[in-house]
Each structure stands twice: as structure tokens, then as C-alpha cells.
């Protein structure tokens, strides 16, 4: 049986990303394996620690940097994370100094907002209403 076990966000600095994604967003570090000058560094959700892992992937490939930059400038999120209560999460993150480039907005059956992960990406938070 095939299954999705990892997905990734490209980051400019793995250590900085680890701090942002754990200390601000609230993920938990799962694996941290040295791979040459980089690390195989994955995170999980606190309540799904056996679930899909998020790889903080180093930006070693130049064309990928161009793609990341283009998405960032257009405000397009690299990926989207689900939260239970977006307005509450938005207030919590704002209090921690996280910058939002799109305030919470109701779109069809969801409420969405977009934040800057400080590592080169826009990240969308979504709540199913």
C-alpha cells in the first residue's frame, strides 16, 4: 500500500526555519539527520506525530530559488496548513511577531490567511467553516 509520508517547504536557512516552524507555528521536530552540508530535517503536527512529515528542504538548486522568489512576490502560498480556529491562531501568531500578508478572509467554505515564514515562503493557514 502506497502512502504519503513526507512533503516539503524549501527554506533558505534550515536552522532559522526550524526555529520559526517549531517556536512560532508549533510543529515538533521529528527527524534530524546530517546529509553533507545540509540536514534531513522533518517536522510533525503535535497531534499527528505518526502522520505526514514536513521536510525543511535546503534551497541548493538555483532554479528552485527563482521559482520560490516568483511565488513569494505574487503572494502565492507555497503550501497550506489546517488550523481549528483561524482567528485565534492569527491573534496568537501576531502576538509572536509573525507577519501576515493576507488577513483572515472568508472564501467559500473556508477562512484563510497568509503569513510570511521568514525563510522565503508565503504559507496559508486554513480553517474549514
Amino acid at each position, binding site marked *: 500500500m502506497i502512502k504519503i509520508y513526507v512533503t516539503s517547504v524549501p527554506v533558505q536557512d534550515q536552522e532559522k526555519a526550524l526555529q520559526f516552524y517549531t517556536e512560532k507555528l508549533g510543529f515538533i521536530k521529528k527527524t534530524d539527520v546530517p546529509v553533507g552540508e545540509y540536514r534531513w530535517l522533518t517536522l510533525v503536527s503535535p497531534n499527528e506525530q505518526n502522520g505526514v512529515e514536513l521536510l525543511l528542504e535546503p534551497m541548493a538548486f538555483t532554479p528552485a530559488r527563482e521559482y520560490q522568489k516568483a511565488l513569494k512576490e505574487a503572494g*502565492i502560498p507555497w503550501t497550506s496548513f489546517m488550523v481549528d480556529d483561524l482567528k485565534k491562531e492569527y491573534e496568537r501568531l501576531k502576538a509572536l511577531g509573525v507577519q501576515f500578508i493576507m488577513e483572515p478572509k472568508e*472564501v467559500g*467554505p473556508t477562512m484563510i490567511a*497568509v503569513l510570511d515564514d521568514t525563510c522565503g515562503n*508565503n504559507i496559508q493557514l486554513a480553517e474549514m467553516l
Partner: protein
Amino acid sequence: MNTPKKTFYEQEVERISREHGLPQHYYAYVRQSKAFMERHYGDKIELDKIASAAFMSRFHYIRVFQQVYGLTPRQYLRDLRIARAKELLKKGHSVTSVCFNVGYESLPTFSKVFKRGTGYSPKAYQDLNISNRE
């Protein structure tokens, strides 16, 4: 004070929502029915009852729910029950009590649906998560 300029993404989200969104009251009705399922997933839920609470015929309700959430109400309820069952199994509740707690009336049906949704039988899922405590 100047309002910050909207990104391309935000403008597109607004445009698509404006041009292709469903009428607002549809969202309100199906959201209400979804909330009903979230409150009563442990009970026997009749689809006709939810549909009439959303002021729609059964057929129309299923179609609109699917347009909004991408799943039929029945699939949504099944996923909701499996998600709740996973939480209860992780807390150590017995498979039988979890089965009835999440609205199934038959243990074989619950086990079959759970296995199809997670890849594990309820017992195997519990053993895996209890031996690998989070």
C-alpha cells in the same frame, strides 16, 4: 493611512470567489449541516433530516455539499467518525466502545470502514499508537 496593496494571490482569490462562488446562503446551509454532523456523529444520522434542515431536497443537498466541500455528506461523516475513532483508540478505549461512540451499530462494519480509511484494523491502530506513545 494607505491600505496595503493586495497581492496577486489575494486578488485572484477574491475574483474567483466573486465570479464562481455559490450563492452565500448555500454556504450557510451546508455549514450548518456540517456542524450538525460534528455535534451528532455518535448518533444515527438520517440524510433526509439534514437535507430538510438545510431547506433542500436530498438530491440537491448532496450535490451542493459536494460542490462546497468536495465530498458527499456521507463521506464527510465517515471521515469524521474515523478521525474521532482514532482519537479514542489512542486514549485506550476499547474497540467496541469506540465503535458505538462514533455512531456505528455493527462492529464488523466499523472495523471494515476503519481499515479502509486508515490501512489498519482498529486494534492494530491502537497497538501501534499505544506502543509508540506520542
